[in-house]
């Protein structure tokens, strides 16, 4: 079921609008609070629910598996690098999950695109995507293995 916003908790910061892949979270022009402009286009990806710093966005579960009285809420703690879920069933059963969302401090292990020079016209017109062929080593001959490519499999979540 699509997302909805608790208007009294929303402070109109715009993180949900920024992150929504469907571009359906917008700021209401009169009340300056976020709302889902097109609920039937919502993918239920939970991006906005996780991004909301005020926990003002929630998702109703489907009635067949999530009857009245249930609750599925999430807290994405970026500073700690974790995401926590709390599932409450109608009969009172509660399940808690805590998982990592990164193993390295933010902004250290991902390429900073702002620092990379802008692509030239030839690069834009070519069939290759960003950082290709370097990143996929299609320019080398022989059998492509991680070892041959000078790469090692990293353990953990690398982002």
């Amino acid at each position, binding site marked *: 079921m699509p997302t909805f916003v608790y208007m009294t908790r929303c*402070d109109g910061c715009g993180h949900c609008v920024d*992150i929504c892949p469907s571009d359906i979270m917008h700021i209401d*022009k009169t009340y300056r609070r976020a709302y889902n402009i097109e609920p039937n286009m919502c993918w239920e990806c939970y991006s906005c629910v996780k991004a909301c710093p005020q926990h003002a966005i929630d998702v109703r579960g489907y009635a067949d598996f999530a009857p009245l009285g249930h609750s599925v809420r999430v807290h994405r703690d970026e500073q700690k690098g*974790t995401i926590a879920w709390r599932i*409450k069933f109608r009969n009172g059963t509660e399940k808690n999950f805590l998982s990592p969302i990164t193993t390295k401090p933010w902004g250290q292990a991902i390429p900073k695109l702002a620092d990379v020079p802008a692509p030239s016209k030839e690069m834009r017109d070519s069939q290759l995507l960003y950082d290709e062929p370097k990143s996929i080593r299609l320019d080398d001959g022989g059998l492509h293995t991680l070892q041959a490519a000078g790469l090692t499999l990293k353990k953990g979540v690398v982002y």
Partner: protein
Amino acid sequence: MFSINPFAALSATLSPAVMQAYVVVMFLLVIAGTLFDVVHKGSAKYFFQNMRKSKAKGARPLGGGELVSIAVQTAVVDVLASGEFCNPRRRVAHLLGMYGFVLYVLATVVMVFNPAAGAIWAQLWWLGGLMVCVGGYWFWFFIRVDVAAEGNSPFRVVKADLFILSMLASATLGLVWAATGGGAGVWFGLYILATTILFGSVPWSKFAHMFFKPAAAFEKRVTRADGTAENLPTQTRDDPEQQKRHSMELLQNAPMDMGLGIKREAPRHY
């Protein structure tokens, strides 16, 4: 200019009793407006209903001492330091506006009821008014979501702007009135009009947020302390018990502060 009580100079044309009566009427309007708002929206009913619900569902009951400690935390972090704001620019603008408004109102009351008040009160009145203007105009033209993110014109006005605009108008016109020599002229009329709108429009404006927001912040802290937390997860990585979880194995050597994720930059990509 900054050391002269503008209300003392005004008493030549307007009786101090009238000015004092006006201040009392404005105070009563705020009380009446807030009470009307509370009854009309049912916010107090909702607040106490939520507190009872939270108490009934709470994993652990809270004692009186704990509630006092939560009230102190709310007052210090959420009220005095505007801790609710995650955007630092909004927080600074709010602090400027809040403390400026408190100084501005307090100094007005002191100078109206005691025309012989020291020059420090006149200076505080100026300082308060300027702080309101700096914080308010910064918010109005650069920070608020309509302008900063939605790209709307800063001159597009809706009902939700009643509080901020009347407060800015009151402070700006008050300062202009005092800077142009005071007295009972056009600037004074405009200043009084803006001030009357500010204090008289409580049921329709966001003026009452200064009473509701601390209550909401207190409730939020209480639910977190008693374990209900509005059904939000309460488990965190800094809890030694949680560090033993299998899922936390990958974060064993990771720093406890990973820095800001998406909050590293303001949301303005839409």
